[in-house]
């Protein structure tokens, strides 16, 4: 088709449209995309507040309700529609926002007031800064002699379970879950007559800090709750690593792991209650990790 022909076709169509012979796309049909962020007084709603499992962006879907029913079962970004060959603007923005949130969780500290409200004393590994923590995993596993002594001095000799929190790779996970999971574990164990220490917080802490803390203590079980490396689904996911009589240099297989603790995964209170049972089983069987029959 030559340019001239195209122009003629367009002109003919426009004439028919103006004459009312053709239906112009109705405003409703074009603005159908559901769950667009609403605007209130010039302020756009926080895109992070939209539940992706309930958002379906495909236009003129054959059966949107059936797709939404499937979306209930997965956090994957499906049913997002497209703009030409690309993502829609909303999808792109959400992706960037989730990525930014994940990065921020890795690079930021747990706010001091969160730790104060939980009455958690703060200790720091041999890392001097967050940059060092991220680049030197070996330094995030150990304390200097003075710090280790102070930590261990705070654990009474009759304590059977040592419980503490570490930032790991997500400060957001600590902020989101610590207040709900800590009391469930403490009350649960104390209710069963098992003495727990006063929990503390380790800054720039990795999983293996539990080895140095537990090695040589009379306490039997050490449990650390720490932030998981964030993904795009959530930056608030916490893991519990639990070991019976951990020692420096022990095999990783001796740790029992409970991952995916966040509001879209295992809720903090349920995870805490499950950890209570796990720890009681460890105390009874005197083992942990893959040696523990679950």
């Amino acid at each position: 088709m030559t340019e001239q022909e195209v122009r003629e076709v367009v002109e003919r169509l426009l004439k028919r449209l103006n004459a009312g012979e053709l239906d112009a796309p109705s405003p409703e049909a074009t603005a159908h995309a559901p769950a667009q962020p609403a605007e209130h007084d010039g302020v756009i709603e926080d895109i992070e507040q939209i539940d992706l499992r309930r958002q379906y962006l495909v236009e003129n879907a054959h059966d949107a309700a059936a797709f939404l029913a499937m979306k209930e079962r997965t956090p994957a970004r499906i049913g997002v529609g497209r703009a030409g060959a690309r993502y829609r603007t909303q999808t792109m923005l959400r992706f960037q926002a989730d990525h930014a949130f994940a990065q921020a969780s890795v690079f930021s500290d747990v706010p001091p007031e969160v730790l104060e409200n939980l009455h958690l004393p703060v200790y720091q590994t041999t890392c001097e800064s967050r940059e060092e923590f991220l680049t030197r995993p070996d330094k995030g596993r150990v304390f200097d002699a003075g710090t280790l002594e102070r930590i261990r001095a705070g654990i009474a000799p009759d304590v059977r379970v040592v419980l503490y929190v570490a930032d790991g790779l997500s400060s957001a996970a600590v902020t989101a879950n610590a207040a709900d999971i800590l009391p469930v574990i403490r009350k649960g164990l104390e209710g069963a007559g098992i003495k727990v220490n006063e929990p503390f917080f380790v800054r720039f802490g990795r999983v293996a800090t539990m080895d140095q803390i537990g090695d040589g203590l009379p306490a039997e079980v050490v449990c650390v709750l720490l932030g998981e490396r964030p993904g795009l689904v959530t930056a608030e996911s916490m893991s519990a690593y639990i070991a019976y009589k951990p020692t420096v240099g022990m095999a990783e297989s001796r740790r029992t792991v409970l991952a995916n603790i966040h509001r879209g995964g295992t809720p903090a209170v349920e995870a805490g209650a499950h950890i209570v049972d796990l720890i009681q089983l460890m105390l009874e069987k005197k083992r942990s990790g893959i040696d523990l029959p679950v």
Partner: protein
Amino acid sequence: MREERLLSVGIDIGTSTTQCVFSAITLSNTASSFSVPRIQITEKRVLYRAPLRLTPLTSPDTIDAQGVEQIVSEDYAAAGIRPEQIRLGAVIITGETARKQNARAVSQALSRLAGDFVVATAGPALESILAGRGSGAAELSRTSGKRVMNLDIGGGTANMAVFERGEPIANGCLDIGGRLLRFEDDDRTVLSFSPAMRRIARDAGVPLAEGTRLSGEETDRLAVRMAEVLEEAAGLKPRTPLHDALCVEACLPDIGPSDIYTFSGGVSECIYGTDTDTARFHDLGAALGRAVASSRFFAAGRVRRPAECSYATVIGAGAYSVAVSGSTICYQELTFPLPSLPTGKVPFAGPEDLPGLEAAVREQYRIFDGECAICMDGVQAPSYALVEQAAQALARAMAPHWPKVVILREDMAKALGQALMRAWPGDTPFLCMDGISLTYGDTVDIGAPLSGGRVIPVIVKTLAFSAGR
């Protein structure tokens, strides 16, 4: 233990026939090793179907309990299964309500064979849903994305259930079945008929009396009128007073036509023309099947043959009646099973419900004379404070009652249960479980824990959509 296979028995004592089916139900932990376990039913497989037998009766209204026991023990022997191997099961007595008078005697006679985790009488709503699940109509609605209505037409009743996305959205039951009218061996002379049949005959203008002979045309007229009432229920024809008069307990809500219709139950074999031996019944079943086959159902081109026909209800009872709880639950010192527990639903879906919680629980115990399970929606990812305060309120309100059972939908039962355990004296028997969604007035049978004690099997006997309390 990642996988566990349980044997389940389903026994359906119907108006015309008694059926027994053995199934294998597989429970698996579908969560990764690094997560909280999630035990789910991952497979249901029918292992053995016993042949259909006529239900033994001692009188037209009374089931011969010993006769049924005899039949079922023969089925066990034929299947090569010992009663002690059975972990789950359901016995249901279906069809006309009058037949259920000696349900207790029947379930007692069967208790040695079926174990003690059973449903004695199911009620029309549950029968309809079990038939719809057992036939495969529920699954068809899930895979096709269509609204599917299953009509399970047996000897005494037509049980109807409508499914969307695999879940029942409506159910109802009509006094329509193949055995409402029985003939002598000549298939012409009326031997007996039910009160519902008298209504139908009056409406169709067919004089009916025991000992009289019906012409072929009269028999067909009765059957056609019955088929019409089914059309009325299914939204294919405006409802008439006869439809309303034939409703058992509750009519199917008038929700318009469905995309797909499936038929199950004994009469369905006559509808699809798959029963080659209809003569032995000497009743209206064959005529009713022919009438439905030339009805508006087929004219609309929306009829499909389901995966299961005659065995739909019994497979539903044996393999689809049981659900399992969430895998983080809390219980102690209880003796299972806890059969036929009514459920009192209290509003609890967030902090705003806390102030009224204690009074709401007390009110449910008052309504149910002090014996019911307390069920609530619960809160997704609740705070510790909320769990603790809810436990305090529940602990006070539930203290004087027995048994102490809390059922939640949202995943919070273990945390709540541990808080309850601290609130009551140490060895107080109780059960707190989640992952079960209930509607007001549902009754539950709670079985003994499975999968190393991590999950509880539950049969929900729904009364949804019927007139209940």
